[in-house]
């Protein structure tokens, strides 16, 4: 049952997913080339000082990618389900509806993670080859909030899409926007350190929200 559902999701998304992975990989490689370019045109010292004192990070342009990916993936996965009420069928499967939806979410989060990791690996390796390990720390501290933001974006998108009534959809939308903004406050080096645990907890807690709206969906509100 579990396997079957995951497999179904994979079949549904694999094309888009591969597309995303490739695109992201290419983008990351491009960023690395730009870094290389910077080191070619200026002496290493200048680039380092720029990082240490001005907080220049070559991967900054990747900031909003997890967010975007989260939203896109959420839409791709659940729009079809909503449009022709396929989700109904799933929800009437032998296993409890929460479990069923949970599986869908797991599949989505899993694909999300896999989609980003290759690109991130490239960034990390490239960064490490030009900068000392402090940079990797920096990379971790700056990128992690964005990554969490991606997860949150995915969950909130599903939350919003699956919610059956329009009035609440708007509410969900507002809530999502308000919440996601927080993951993208700019900071320097490990400025996020003290906020991270809280944000992680928050993100984990968000898993419950899609279940809430799926529950309402199956109850058949607003239709």
């Amino acid at each position, binding site marked *: 049952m579990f396997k079957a559902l995951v497999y179904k999701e994979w079949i549904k998304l694999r094309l888009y997913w591969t597309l995303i992975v490739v695109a992201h990989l290419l983008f990351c490689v491009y960023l690395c*080339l*730009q870094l290389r*370019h910077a080191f070619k*045109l200026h002496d290493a010292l200048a680039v380092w000082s720029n990082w240490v004192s001005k907080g220049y990070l070559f991967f900054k342009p990747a900031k909003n990618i997890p967010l975007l990916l989260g939203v896109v993936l959420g839409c791709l996965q659940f729009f079809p389900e909503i449009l022709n009420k396929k989700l109904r069928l799933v929800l009437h499967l032998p296993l409890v509806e929460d479990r069923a939806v949970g599986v869908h979410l797991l599949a989505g989060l899993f694909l999300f993670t896999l989609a980003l990791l290759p690109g991130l690996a490239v960034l990390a390796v490239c960064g490490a080859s030009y900068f000392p390990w402090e940079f990797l720390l920096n990379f971790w501290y700056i990128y992690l909030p964005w990554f969490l933001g991606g997860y949150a974006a995915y969950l909130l998108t599903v939350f919003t899409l699956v919610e059956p009534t329009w009035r609440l959809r708007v509410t969900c939308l507002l809530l999502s926007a308000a919440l996601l903004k927080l993951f993208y406050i700019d900071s320097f080096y490990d400025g996020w350190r003290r906020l991270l645990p809280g944000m992680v907890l928050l993100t984990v807690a968000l898993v419950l929200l899609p279940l809430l709206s799926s529950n309402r969906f199956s109850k058949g509100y607003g239709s």
Partner: protein
Amino acid sequence: MKTFARTLLFASGVILLAHYLPAGYWLLSAKMRRPPIVYYSCTEKQFMFFRYTNQTAIRMDAHGKVYEREEFERILPIDHWMQLLRDGKLPDTVGGVALTAEALRRERLSFRIKPTMIDTPSVNLTPLLDADTGRVRLEMPEDFMRLGATIEFIHAQTNVVEREKSALFQRAFAEAGFVFPATVLGGNPSTMKPYDEGYYVADATGATFHLRQLRGKPDIHRVSSLASAEDKPKWEALKPIYFHVQEQDTREVHAIIVDKSNQAWFAVGKNYRLVPIPLQHYDPARMSLVVRGDLINRLISATGEDSVEAVVLNRDYGLVDRYTEPLVPRAATPAGKLARAIFPFTLRFEDVSTGYLGVFTEVGSRIALLVNGGLLVLMLVWLGSRKQLRLSRLPDLLAVAIGGIYGVALVFLLPKAD
């Protein structure tokens, strides 16, 4: 319809590739290229250079003799007077001119004119400082001047036009014989400067005026009327396209002026003496002009993609020495040659010559034509062999003929004609 759509697709495709492929190419193969920094030694009476060769800086003279840092500084006492002073090596006089700290500081002079300064977007609103408030520090006014078909002052806080002040200035302009609209306006709207020179304005006829605000009152003069008899005609003939105003402690140079014939001028001293800068290759649209002055000389250098030219004037602006050096432009480097061979043409939308976006093309070398021809032939053969040489293929063939590799890429990427 759909052939039109397809042709359009090819056209835009070629344009985009012509922009992105070369950009990508240069992202991979660009190297650090810095033109030499030119100095003029007032003791040795010769040019000295600070050159970057693969990331290391070396100091040499015109004959390629390499100098140690200390030696270099000793030969250029005025450029390194602080260091020499610290080491007690600063000569008391050079050519009879005493080198004292404050004199050196006061007489230091430096201007820099980049091509983008001459042609860049700007709002026609600018603060007209009061040049004579009786304070040491200049203060930002509360209104902005709009100088176009008329002259107006707009109060920022209230965002309304100040009627009487505008009228006052309007009258002053009329009396000075200023013909609206103003065509060129040059000033230095900053308070971080020793004094305020005000603005230089060219009116509709191209005549140059000097505008200042003194204790709230307008002070505008037709410069030719201020100039001495022998400069008067020069000023009247002058057709400026750019005024560069940058106040310096030595109040000697009012402004640097670039005119329609790409000639650069100094406006010097009390009676606005107009001194031509004797550069031979200066092109304001492509080269940056750097003026460095000191107690003894004025060194003017124009640096472009393919040459460095420098002239030295004495304090009376008489030509002392000149130097010209060709540089290897990027297009002439091996990477550049290769680029011009494989890319039939390149499109850029930004350019050093302007702050505006535009369409800037560079055509490839002759080899590129051969490449295109070759590709076209191959294409024909290939199509022929597959019995697809039909009229509907014309767009593809054209794309290859014009776009070379761009075209080929497109033929394989874009939908086939059916």
